[in-house]
């Protein structure tokens, strides 16, 4: 599957003799070639929370008494840790669901006057790994292109919501004609961007104003888009990995929440096993439509505002149970895939949680957080102070460290999380 990738091929592919910094990382990459499995990171957010009375056990520790929700994951008990008492500080924002956009970033007061988002933890990791993989990261979503991945200057990176498109992007090889066409397209894109870059420079020269922030950013963005295209072109010379499954069919029905979630989760072991990327984020979008689930006759979002109505809580628990079930099957998938004699799960840190601790009150504290795999020591429930939460970013730092980055600080962290 792996081909030696020389600087010459890269230069040939890009069509011109350029030396971009990424070429170096390309040459020195492929940790997996040298023996050890590469570390991966999967970050999953279910944006409407998890009903906490059904999730958290009464007492922390290894011998915690299982709960209604944890029972669903009982088979994986040794492979995950439940953490209580984590949150990002200062999350009261303009809209009570704005904590969705800061879940991976920890920027304060989302949506309030002057708010700017910051880089998300997946993109931070992606910016550090270089292009050892075909994609530096993937952002997936069950519905709409809304992701939780943000660039350094706080711009959302659109998510892939169609499993078929992800599959095509990663595994579909295309005919020689299509490849040729694609290559032409990339080349044209680069010449166009080059042209736009020149125009931007000219425009800047023409106007005497000193405030060029946006034009400068545009110029840099154009250059970056250009080098991204060059990178894609270089990767076109490397055949995509062979996989023995059919292209998945997309679920058109927006109310099939579980089907859509499962379809994305099904792809993740495949994505990681083929080393197409090492960083995946998934957002399970809160929907107002009535999900197609036996015993549920109201929308997921309205049910999350259960108003303590027992019937609504009952239905909400059915939905959340099914989502946890999908998570369980993901753990199965990662556990059943082996790489160099090790379970894929052991080299993959999986974070599963939510930006809301109590969706009924839009409370962004005391978040439900599960960490699985990644070589951490699991099998316990860790509970931090519920009145004085630990920063969720401390966990992010631990995840980044586990991922192989010597990061001491991220977002609002005060250190790694001891769990």
């Amino acid at each position, binding site marked *: 599957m792996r081909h030696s990738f020389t600087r010459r091929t890269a230069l040939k592919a890009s069509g011109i003799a350029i030396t971009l910094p990424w070429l170096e990382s390309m040459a020195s990459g492929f940790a997996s070639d040298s023996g050890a499995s590469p570390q991966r990171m999967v970050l999953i957010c279910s944006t409407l929370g998890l009903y906490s009375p059904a999730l958290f056990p009464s007492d922390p520790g290894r011998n915690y008494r299982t709960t209604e929700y944890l029972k669903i994951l009982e088979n994986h008990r040794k492979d995950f840790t439940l953490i209580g008492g984590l949150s990002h*500080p*200062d999350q*009261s*924002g*303009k*809209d*009570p*669901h704005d904590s969705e*956009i800061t879940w991976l970033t920890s920027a304060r007061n*989302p*949506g*309030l*006057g002057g*708010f*700017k988002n910051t880089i998300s933890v997946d993109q931070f990791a992606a910016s550090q790994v270089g292009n050892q993989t075909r994609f530096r990261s993937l952002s997936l979503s069950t519905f709409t*292109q809304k992701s939780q991945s943000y*660039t350094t*200057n*706080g*711009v*959302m*990176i659109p998510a892939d*919501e169609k499993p078929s498109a992800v599959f095509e992007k990663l595994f579909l090889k295309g005919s020689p004609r299509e490849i040729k066409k694609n290559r032409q397209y990339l080349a*044209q894109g680069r010449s*166009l*961007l080059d*042209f*736009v870059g020149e*125009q931007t420079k000219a*425009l800047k020269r023409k*106007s*005497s*104003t*000193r*405030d*060029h922030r*946006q034009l400068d*950013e*545009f110029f840099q*963005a*154009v250059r*970056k*888009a250009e080098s991204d295209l060059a990178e894609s072109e270089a990767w076109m010379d490397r055949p995509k990995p062979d996989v023995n499954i059919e292209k998945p069919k997309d679920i*058109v029905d927006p109310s099939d929440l579980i089907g859509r979630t499962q379809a994305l989760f099904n792809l993740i072991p495949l994505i990681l096993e083929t080393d197409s990327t090492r960083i995946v984020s998934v957002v399970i979008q809160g929907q*107002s439509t*009535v999900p197609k689930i036996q015993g549920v*006759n*109201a*929308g997921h979002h*309205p049910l999350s*505002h259960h*108003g*303590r*109505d027992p*019937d609504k809580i009952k239905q909400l628990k059915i939905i959340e149970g099914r989502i946890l079930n999908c998570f369980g099957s993901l753990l199965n998938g990662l556990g059943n895939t082996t790489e160099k004699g090790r379970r894929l799960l052991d080299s993959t840190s999986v974070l599963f949680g939510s930006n809301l601790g*109590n969706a*009924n*009150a*839009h*409370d962004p504290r005391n978040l439900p957080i599960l960490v699985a795999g990644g070589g951490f020591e699991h099998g316990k429930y860790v509970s931090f102070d519920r009145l004085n939460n630990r920063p969720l970013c401390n966990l992010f730092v631990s995840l980044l460290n586990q991922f192989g980055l010597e990061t001491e600080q991220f977002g609002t962290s005060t250190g790694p999380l001891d769990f």
Partner: protein
Amino acid sequence: MIRAASIAGWLGLQVLVPFFPAGFGNHLFAGEIADEIDRELGRFVNEFCISCHDSSTTTRLDFTKTSRDFSDQRLFQRWVRVFDRLEKGEMPPAGESQPDPAVRKKFLAGLEKRLYQANRKRQQSRGRVPSRRLSRLQYEHTLQDLLDIGGKLARFLPPENESGSFDVIAAQQEMSPVHVRGFLKAAETALDEAVQLGRQPYRGKRSLNYFQSPYIQMWVDRPTRMGGGTIFKTGTDVVMFRGENHVFRSDHNGYRPPVAGRYRITVRAAAYQPRSSITLSLKRQNDVQGDSELFAAWDLSGKNYREVSTTHYLRPDDFFYVSADELEPAPDGKVIYNSQPASEFRGEGVSIRSVVIEGPLEGSWPPDRTQALFPATRWKHAPQGNRNTRQYQPLFESSAADSIRKAISRLAWMAFQRELSPEEIDRFLGLAQPDVANGVEFVEAAKRSLKAILVSPELIFLAGDPGALKDGELARRLSFFLWRSLPDSELVEIANEKKLVENGTLLAQVDRMIGSPRFDRFVNEFLDQWLDLDQIDATTPDYFLYPEYDDVLRRAMLAETREFFKHLVRDNLSVSNLVDSEFTFLNRRLAEHYGVEGVVGEQVRRVNLGPNHVRGGILGQASIAKVTANGTVTTPVRRGHFILSNLLGLPPDPPPPGVGSVEPDTRGATTIREVLGRHQSEESCAVCHRKIDPPGFAMEVFDPVGNYRTRYRSSRGNDRAINVGLRLLHKEYILGKKVDSAGTTPQGDDFRNIQEYKNLLLKSSDQVARNVVSRLIEFSTGGEIEFADREVVESILDATRGEGFPLRSLIHQVVSSRLFRNR
């Protein structure tokens, strides 16, 4: 009509800038030396501030580290805050030694002059607003107007920064490679839709024949246990008893739009077994893009057939379907599934006689817009391949290169409003030339050059030099303000004749633009962002508690607020109408929702309410009730915050960290007011909440979907079976506790209900006008209100106060102001 033009004193909301001595700004620095002022500032700080705000302070302000270097933006902002807090009397705090009023006044005057001077200097040298890009919506409108196409293009660009301000605010805008790719993708898609050279589609009328469709027949024949049996056929019609997108979708019944374009759809239908007015609707859905849209809704009543039509933009992957809303179940409570055959069912339905589609509505083929794109090119019919391949070949006046040059020149003129030099044209042509040389098909080659125009920074950016805007720049700023797109040819012509800078000409253009249909874009997008109307779908009302809410009602809600505001502008009516008005805009559906009688039909029109009506002003409008509530409950805090921030422009401070939010409880045991009792009883909460909560209390009479209520709906004790289909069978709430909408303003004025509250709020019309003017300035210039801008806002208020701040006059004043006319 202004009942009291006094300052908003009763609310305890001191106006930000009540104090501008006459002639302020004219002889500003006469006889004054900045150094002398500075020494006085220093003396004042040392005497009254430094004892708390020194290096050992626990506050955020340390005067030992706050120099008076006003050219430093951070320090400047800090001093503005010092000015505001002193000016509002918040500092020094009660209990500390207070400066003599004359001393305070002198200090404020000195500080004001220094801040003003520093701010103006910066504005004059750098420009008030830095260069900025078009927002994603502005870019969509621009592409649509340039290429004469429809379709949604903004979706290719990332959402705007959620900064709580307008999408055009330069300081909040972002730029990234994601945007660059988005601009490219949007431009590419737009060009592909503009160039239609496939087989000439049949453009006449075509029937979507539900009656003879085998697909419909399948659903008629299918037993209920397999999901069928909910429709039936009479001798001529197909009858439905609920909205069924699956059964009536156009693509499965034999019709697909051949190309992207505008289509006229005509439906002939009647109410079936009507007991009340019902709604016939036409909806579009696109499963590839995952979006849907209510095209139109019409009222049906009585037995007569109605023929209605609507024109909309369709893409080949869209489908549409005839649907129905507001259908009551059978009088015996039976649902369609247990009332078989369907023809025996006694509930309300819609009987569809015919559906006719006409289009694409193009005068010629290839369409005019395609031909217009290539001026020196004619198209010869050359049939080949299947219907999707190109069926027309270009015939050039001279050569392919020349044709591309002419196309570049024309599109660039439209996009940049100027002639390109021959060298510039050469540069754009350069992108196509290698392809032309390599024998790449003409259109594909030409598109490369044209795409470069559409993603050119000259189009995407509103950039320029500090100082007065030149005619062309003024035309752009004006049209991106009122039309959210490029200027049209009339405006460009006037600008090119250098006449636009004359104020009379400028205002005449403003009036023309306000009268144009394109002004709807301003109304929709300004209100979407100012009044959060774009949040209307952020939550979905609980199906059981609010069964009356549907797409048709939602549409009427939005239409009310938009038509209302448009009317205020077009008829130049007072800003106080936003607080209370004797009229609003309703159709039959919304009027029923409000309990207003005598409104017939789906047309939204002006309806007189009379004085002191619950529904007068925007606070009585269901759209506002909806965007300030979540799906199940309302909270006075959110609504109070809305009135303070969005209507009055005086946002309260955010809550201190660690404050919990209220957990909604719909079981009916406690009301939200009982839960919020602590806000008043604990002083640390009451400091802010005595301002925030009372307006919200008044709004409690409106439930999350804008019903007027006297009792809360409660879900307690309901054992819900799972019902299928009929909306109103879900009405399973009970009425709980009484709504209490009385309150007391921070000034001690009591109100018993929303009407009395609005009467008190009318005293703040000055502040509402100040807020509207400020928002208009921001929305039109892309720059937030700065310190030196305050005097402009005040002078606009002074000039319009006599007539009660009429809205069109406010727009005129904004456009005439130095803030609009300078960079």
